[in-house]
C-alpha cells in the first residue's frame, strides 16, 4: 500500500496530487509537464514539496505536517531512472552491488543476474553496454538494494521499439514477483495496458482519474497520450498456436487471432486494441479478410470535437472501443442497445500491446 500526497508551488505551476495505490504496480500516467516526475521525485525524497506525505505500508517516508522528510538514502528505494544512471567508473558487477552494500541485507546476486540475463556483462563497464543492457543492469541494481518501494521514471522512454519489447517483460515479472509496491511513471498507453495494476492520471499537476488500465484507457477525456492512444484492454488466455504463424486466444469464449506470441497455451494475456483499428458492422460480415469478428451491443457513443465518434461496445470478450466517423455512426443507425459487430485485423494488434496478465 502506497499513499502519496504532494502539494508544491513552482512559479505558475501548482502541483496538487494525492492518491493511494493498492499493492502491485501503479502507473503515474500523464503528458510531459503534468507533474509526474515531480511527484516521483518527492516520493524519492529528491525534492521536498511545500506540503506532502508519503507512506509505504506502515513506514512514513515523509510527512511535512509532522516535520518529517527523510533524505533519499534513508527511504529504502530502488529507483530506475530513464537514462539508467549507471556509475561509469564501476563495473556492472560493482554497479549491481552498490545499493546492496548500503542496504546491508546481502540479497544473493545470482538470481537477479540470472533473471535479467546479466551474466556475460558482469565484468564490463556501463560505457560498453547498449541501451537495453544498461536498463537491465539498472533494474538489477534497484532490486539488489532490497527496496521497500520501487520507483521507475519512464524507464523505457529512451529505448527504441525493439529494446522496449526486450525490457517490458522484466517489468511484468517485477510486478508479479516483487513484494513491494512499484510506482511507474509513463506516458505510453501500451505500457499502461501491459503493466498497470492501477493507473493514476495526472493533468496540470492534478489527479484527474484513478482506476484500472481498462477503465482509464477507454476514456478519451483523460487519456493523456491523445485520441490515438484510446483503446480497450482485454484479459484473454492463449488457446492454441497454429501452424500458419498465428496464435488463437480465448477472449471470454470468443476466438481472437494474433501473430504468434511466445507465451504457452493456457497463459493469461492482456491485449490492447486501439480504438482506431476497429471497424464496426451491423451485419456479421462475410467474405472479409479480417479474422477477428466480435459480436456485441453498443453501450455508448461519445462524440468529440471534429468528425469522429468513439463507440463503446459490450462483447463477451469485454468492452471494445471503436473510433469511427460521426457520419458512419449515423449511417449505421448506431445507438445504445443496438447489436453490432467489431472487426479487428489480426496484424493491427501491435506486439508491444500484448503482454502477460
Amino acid at each position, binding site marked *: 500500500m502506497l499513499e502519496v500526497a504532494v502539494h508544491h508551488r513552482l512559479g505558475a505551476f501548482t502541483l496538487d496530487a494525492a492518491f493511494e495505490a493498492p499493492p502491485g504496480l501503479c502507473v503515474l500516467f500523464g503528458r510531459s509537464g503534468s507533474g509526474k516526475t515531480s511527484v516521483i521525485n518527492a516520493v524519492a525524497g529528491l525534492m521536498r514539496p511545500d506540503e506532502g506525505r508519503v507512506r509505504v505500508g506502515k513506514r512514513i517516508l515523509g510527512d511535512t505536517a509532522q516535520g518529517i522528510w527523510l533524505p*533519499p*538514502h534513508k527511504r529504502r528505494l*530502488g*529507483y530506475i531512472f530513464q537514462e539508467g*544512471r549507471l556509475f561509469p567508473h564501476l563495473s556492472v558487477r560493482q554497479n549491481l552491488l*552498490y545499493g546492496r552494500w548500503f542496504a546491508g541485507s546481502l540479497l544473493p546476486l545470482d538470481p537477479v543476474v540470472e533473471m535479467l540475463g546479466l551474466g556475460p556483462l558482469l565484468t*564490463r563497464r556501463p*560505457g560498453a553496454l547498449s541501451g537495453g543492457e544498461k536498463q537491465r543492469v539498472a533494474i538489477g541494481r534497484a532490486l539488489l538494494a532490497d527496496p521497500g518501494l520501487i*520507483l521507475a521514471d519512464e524507464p523505457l522512454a529512451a529505448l527504441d521499439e525493439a529494446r522496449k519489447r526486450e525490457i517490458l517483460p522484466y517489468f511484468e515479472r517485477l510486478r508479479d514477483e516483487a513484494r513491494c509496491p512499484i510506482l511507474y511513471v509513463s506516458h505510453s498507453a501500451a505500457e499502461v495496458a501491459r503493466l498497470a495494476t492501477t493507473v493514476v492520471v495526472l493533468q496540470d499537476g492534478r489527479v484527474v482519474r484513478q482506476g484500472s488500465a481498462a477503465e482509464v484507457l477507454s476514456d478519451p477525456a483523460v487519456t493523456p497520450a491523445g485520441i490515438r492512444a484510446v483503446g480497450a484492454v482485454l484479459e484473454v488466455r492463449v488457446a492454441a498456436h497454429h501452424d500458419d504463424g498465428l496464435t488463437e486466444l480465448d477472449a471470454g469464449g470468443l476466438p481472437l487471432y494474433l501473430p504468434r506470441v511466445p507465451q504457452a497455451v493456457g497463459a493469461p494475456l492482456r491485449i490492447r486494441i486501439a480504438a482506431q483499428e476497429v471497424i464496426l458492422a451491423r451485419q456479421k460480415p462475410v467474405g472479409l479478410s479480417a479474422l477477428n469478428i466480435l459480436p456485441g451491443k453498443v453501450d455508448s457513443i461519445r462524440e468529440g470535437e471534429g468528425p469522429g465518434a468513439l463507440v463503446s461496445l459490450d462483447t463477451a470478450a469485454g468492452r471494445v472501443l471503436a473510433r469511427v466517423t460521426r457520419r458512419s455512426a449515423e449511417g449505421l443507425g448506431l445507438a445504445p442497445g443496438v447489436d453490432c459487430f467489431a472487426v479487428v485485423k489480426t496484424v493491427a494488434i501491435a506486439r508491444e500491446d500484448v503482454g502477460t496478465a
Partner: protein
Amino acid sequence: MDWLSPAEWEAVRLSLRVSFWATVAALPFGLFIAYALARWRFPGKQILNGLVHLPLILPPVVTGYLLLITFSPRAPVGGFLKSIGISFAFNWTGAALAAGIMGFPLMVRAMRLSIEAVDPKLEQAAATLGASRPWVFATVTLPMVLPGVLAGAILGFAKAMGEFGATITFVSNIPGQTQTLPSAIYAFLQVPGGEASALRLVAVAVAVAMLALLLSEWISRRVAARVGGA
C-alpha cells in the same frame, strides 16, 4: 651524480621538497573550495572566487609582501603561530606556503571544472541506493573527478617548482633554507662565472617540468579510460 655541484643539488632537492609539501597541503583545501564553488550557492561566493584567483592576477611580489606582513613574527598572525611553534618566516616552510598559495588558483580551477562535469543525477542515483552525502562523495564524485584532481595537483606542483617572485619576497634567498631552483638560477646569474651552474639548473627545471606534464597526461589518460569505460 656529480654533474651538479652540492650547492646545485641542494637547490633542486629543496625545490622538490617545497613543491611536494606545497601541493600536498593545498590539495584538501583546494578540493573543498573547488567543490564549494562548483556545487554550493552561498553569499560571498564571487568574493571567495576572486580571493582564490588573486595570486594569479596580482604581481607575485605583492603576494609575497602580503605574506610577509601577515606571517612575520612581529605581525599578529605570525606572532601567534610562532608562539605555538609554527614559523614561516625565512624558512623552507615559508617557501612552501608561498608556492602553495601561488599554485592554488590553478589547482582549484582544474578541480572545479572536473567537479562541474560530474552529472548531479549520478549523485542522486547513489543517494536513492542508500548512500549518505559523504558516501556519495567518496564513492561517486571523488572517483569521477580524480583526473581533474590529479591534473590540478600536477599543475600546482609545476607552478610551485617555478615560483620565484612571491618566494623571494616572503622568505628571501637563503641557500639550503629558502633558495629554491628559480632563486638559485637567479643567484648564479648575479655572480661572474655562474652561467654554467645556472644552465645546468635550467636543464633540471626543463626536465622536471616535462616529466610533470608527461606524467599528468599519462595519469589522466589512464583514469579517463577507466572512468569512461568506452
